[in-house]
């Protein structure tokens, strides 16, 4: 059967969302070596704003594609403002403080954002309106929906655009120079404050799109969605080698695939009835097509964390890693 192909398609879809979110973490980390803990919440706000705009326009006579576009286009600037404010409030004043300080302010900011969203959008999960006709195509025994195709294509476009920006433009050079060495970049005439703020803003803009994509893929937006998504995207960034843009993309897609395949197969793999140890009470349980599944697909969220821990333990610099050793 084509569970394999199906899980690969699903994995690619979530993986490309992770990748786009991971870019936000990795760019900020590359420049100031800090984990922007509140990035997940920015993504959540993006999904929420997109939700509000799409829902309020859903009744109008505009073509569905325009409505979705309007939602995404409203989410991007909102999140960019959010990203900029985050940098100004939580990070810039603490740039020379000990490491723990900005991490704690970021946790504080993420609590604040989460609960403001709770106030604004309520406690219940919001059903993302499915206004675009979600056509399903069959390829080789597996199904791929038009939303999935759109997510994968959009993510790839954004990643290509970001690569072009970072590697081919003057400002991109400034970003890379700052990541290499803030002081020397400053001597070369780079305005470090502007570069740092820009990485936050760009990351937030990408995150806004990711939030909208995530929301429309799962059909749901919730004020806590940023936490899990952010954590997974961060794992993806670490997996690829944090600070490395190509690494974040690779890490995101890999993580999506591992998660999808893991969730798809863990039930079968840990079904003790398929192991050659069945005897006694276990054999009875297995006798008429029964099974004894140790870990089912409800362990989905464990994969990302396990992978994160394994990567950090065995290859702390990630797959395409740059320096992550202790800095004096």
């Amino acid at each position, binding site marked *: 059967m084509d569970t394999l192909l199906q899980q690969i398609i699903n994995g690619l879809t979530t993986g490309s969302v992770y990748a786009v979110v991971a870019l936000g973490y990795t760019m900020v980390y590359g420049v100031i070596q*800090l984990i922007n803990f509140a990035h997940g919440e920015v993504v959540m706000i993006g999904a929420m704003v997109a939700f509000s705009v799409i829902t309020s326009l859903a009744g109008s006579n505009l073509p569905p594609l325009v409505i979705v576009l309007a939602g995404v286009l409203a989410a991007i600037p909102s999140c960019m403002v959010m990203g900029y404010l985050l940098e100004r409030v939580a990070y810039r004043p603490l740039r020379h403080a000990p490491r723990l*300080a900005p991490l704690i302010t970021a*946790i504080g*900011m993420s609590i604040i954002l989460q609960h403001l969203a709770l106030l604004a959008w309520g406690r219940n999960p919001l059903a993302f309106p499915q206004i675009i006709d979600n056509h399903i195509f069959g390829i080789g025994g597996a199904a791929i929906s038009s939303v999935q195709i759109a997510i994968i294509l959009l993510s790839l476009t954004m990643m290509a655009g970001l690569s072009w920006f970072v590697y081919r433009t003057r400002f991109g050079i400034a970003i890379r120079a700052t990541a290499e060495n803030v002081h020397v970049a400053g001597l070369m005439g780079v305005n470090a404050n502007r570069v740092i703020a820009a990485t936050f803003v760009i990351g937030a803009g990408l995150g806004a799109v990711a939030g909208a994509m995530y929301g429309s893929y799962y059909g749901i937006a919730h004020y806590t969605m940023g936490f899990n998504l952010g954590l997974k995207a961060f794992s993806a960034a670490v997996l690829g080698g944090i600070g490395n843009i190509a690494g974040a993309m690779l890490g995101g897609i890999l993580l999506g695939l591992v998660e999808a395949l893991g969730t798809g197969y863990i039930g079968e793999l840990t079904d003790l009835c398929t192991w050659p140890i069945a005897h006694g009470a276990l054999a009875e349980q297995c006798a008429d097509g029964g099974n004894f*599944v140790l870990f089912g697909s409800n362990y989905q969220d464990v994969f990302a964390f396990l992978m994160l821990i394994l990567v950090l333990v065995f290859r702390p610099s990630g797959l395409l890693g740059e320096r992550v050793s202790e800095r*004096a």
Partner: protein
Amino acid sequence: MTGNRERFGLALIAIALIALPFVLAMAGTAWVRITNFAVLFVLLSLGLNIVVGFAGLLDLGYVAFYAVGAYVYALLASPHFGLHLPFWIILPIGATVACCAGVILGAPTLRLRGDYLAIVTLGFGEIVRIFMNNLSSPLNLTNGPKGINRIDSFQLGPLNFSTNDTIAGLIFSGPIKYYYFLMLVLLAVIVINRRLQDSRIGRAWVAIREDEIAAKASGINTRNIKLLAFAMGASFGGIAGGMFAALQTFVSPESFVLNESIMVLSMVVLGGMGNIWGVIAGAVLLSFVPELLRYTVEPTQMALFGKVLIDPEVLRMLIFGLALVLTMRFRPAGLWPETRHRREMNENRA
């Protein structure tokens, strides 16, 4: 060192703390319960303080150890497995299991730099919670999201912690008995913490926090010393967890979400990392403020706007978030900082 005046002050505080539950009981047993949970949070914060405050390792999954302690107690003293061991056997077991969990998490991850460690511990906390949520099939270990209920209360000889006793005309209700027990544990933990802080190990922790490379160069086995901090913090968390299970007589994965870790961390940070008294004050403050908010927010909003605009729970979290941001911004070493810490934090600020 201790002057007469200081001794007198301590005696006064002791008397006040001994009389406290009876005064609170007059306002309602609920307040004694609230105080008990506050003391529990003080214990947790003191445990986390060893890891974060003394050794400077940011642990965002501390609640996992609390959860381990609570579940150990719940499994060994409830009808779930039909086991009813006495608490003085279970609490040490819980502490040991939590300690092992701390070592298992710490051993591979402690060489990571601060912020990575924070994320890994956070992930670990989530993994523990996910397992507790799902270990109900194929074998029902944790009863899943429904949790385990009808957990035994403490029982010491004829003394049962869930019933009322009248001694010398005073009614010792269940919560009051727990209060005294918690106070004894707290006293022990404070003494241990104070001794630790001034010991060779305590100084090694501070050295690692200040500069790990220099600490290593001075002959400190940084890995073992960090692991020790982790293990000790975890054991305290395990003990607190066991008492939580008994107090609450019910545990479920919902009590051990990330927010709890963040809450305990806020207590440590707000009070003043590394300073035992500061941490205690932070924990007491953050445990009682929400309760006070619960009683004041709704009436105030009703009076002002005629309806409840902001749910007290949400307001509480907003205040927490704001407190974290503002503390780091204006008093990066906390409200009552440790002297050494204060110097370090101010020096680093450009």
